[in-house]
């Protein structure tokens, strides 16, 4: 089903919209969540929460890309859940392999207080737009979708080491870029 039609269904408050969204992007949303939480039940709950979140958001939101919007909502909910789980240090919490983008920023560095997240997003968009297709895939899969390096290597048919090498170079490049533009101080 076309995304525009699907969004229209949300706008018309058709409950079929959630079913169609689930059929079309449910698996992707689940994998976004599972990469963060590494626990089936938690991931399923987060995806269900995301359906509700999307239902509440559209309208008035009219996303350019429903897929990206659905993934974004799922990611935010899953990260919140992850932090909550982690803070409570619940027993049996699975180990996760993901790394958030800020984790490679040295502790002594911070962001200018005056800067809004929106301005930083624009700078990050600019930096991402400079990456070639393969590097963009590697970086986004690692830090946005939280894929493991091994999975990225498998999908790109590169070795794990080559992916690490690329990520390392991109981290350095991003740090330099953020510093030059006065984002990191």
């Amino acid at each position, binding site marked *: 089903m076309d995304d525009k039609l699907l969004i229209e269904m949300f706008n018309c408050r058709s409950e079929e919209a959630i079913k169609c969204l689930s059929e079309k992007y449910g698996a992707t949303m689940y994998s976004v969540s599972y990469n963060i939480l590494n626990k089936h039940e938690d991931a399923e709950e987060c995806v269900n929460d995301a359906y509700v979140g999307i239902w509440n958001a559209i309208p008035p939101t009219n996303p350019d890309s429903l897929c*990206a919007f659905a993934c*974004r909502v799922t990611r935010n909910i899953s990260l919140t859940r992850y932090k909550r789980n982690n803070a409570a240090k619940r027993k049996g919490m699975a180990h996760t392999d993901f790394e958030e983008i800020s984790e490679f920023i040295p502790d002594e560095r911070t*962001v200018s207080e005056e800067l809004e997240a*929106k301005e930083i997003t624009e700078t990050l968009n600019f930096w*991402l737009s400079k990456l070639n*297709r393969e590097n963009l895939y590697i970086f986004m899969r690692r830090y946005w979708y939280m894929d493991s390096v091994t999975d990225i290597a498998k*999908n790109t048919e590169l070795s794990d080491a080559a992916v690490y090498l690329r990520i390392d170079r991109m981290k350095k490049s991003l740090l330099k870029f953020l510093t030059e533009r006065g984002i990191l101080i």
Partner: protein
Amino acid sequence: MNNGKNKINEAFGNVDSVFIESTLSYQKRGKNRAFRIIAFVACVALALSIIPIGMIIANKKEVNTDFIETQQFTDAENERFTVGDISDLGWEVILFDGLNVQKQKTGVIGAKYVLDINYGEREIFSKCNSDADICAELLGQWIVSLFCFDYDLHFSLFPEQLLADYVYVEFAEEGMTKEQALNKITQVASDVIPLENVKIQYSIKQAYINDSSVTQEFIEKERSVFERIGMDVNKIEGVIKFTIEDAAACFDELWVYEDEYFDYGEDYIFYKYDGRWYAERHLLDDDLSIDFLKAEEENNHGYYKIYKCEGKITDITNGYICLHDNRYFRIAENEIQDFSIGDNVKIQYYNVLAYVKRISDGKRCLLYTSVSVEKQ
């Protein structure tokens, strides 16, 4: 975590949808596929598979790695790839005005370009009589530059403003001028790439020549980048878009590149700017050039890192010796007569490999460049 870091995380979570959607799945692309001919396998990835069995005296350099477990394909993997004799590829070669580039030309659409490139003698194509011809041959130049790891040729397809922004800054970080960097890249590539000769074929399937909607779409897409790097979209005089089919690459008359590595659905766009044709910026790939640049022979680092293996020679063919697991090692021409099938050898090699199919039986093979080979 400090508040600043949270801000960065939040900002990254909200990056443009285009980056989220475009990286949802891996889009195969000719450019990247061509690059995937080699895969750099560094010590990190192989640390788990190391089998230490003692010291080897290096002929050329000090070696600080141990023996590496043999990589072997299963029968099932090999069965996936079948190819007949090279004549099955249906190549028809017509000499192209004395250059080492050959093509059979029947008009741009449907033309078969057969590029017979010698790694030692590279030429930039010049015999063109129309914009479409120029771009079709620039596409050939682009493909050749990737297969030959010729970044001088590759970078010549892009405007200097773009290179300054994307590439030269990286050269400068390494403390090198463009000329020094290209010399280093060429040197590393010729040292570590296990291939001598390649023939490449491709056909143009579709061509959009100065189609107004293609041109407009291109201009809109590039406008912000052009403005940033100091180029003026109003100076774009034409845009040509191709798709290709029937692509094939044959190496050293022995191997072919796996067919599925060519993606026939991709668009290849060239644009005329201020009187000269250039390749679209997404065709610029600096990944390997920068990796080559960081290789350090004296420190046994990066692409110059040396690995070791041992085994019995099962085949000697056209400059390569083969171990039992379909790993082929390019060996110096004057040394190959010292070895026979059945010899047990210890090999030191650069772990830059090409994944190819053997033309004779379609078996999947791995090619490497040897640094030294010793009989045991």
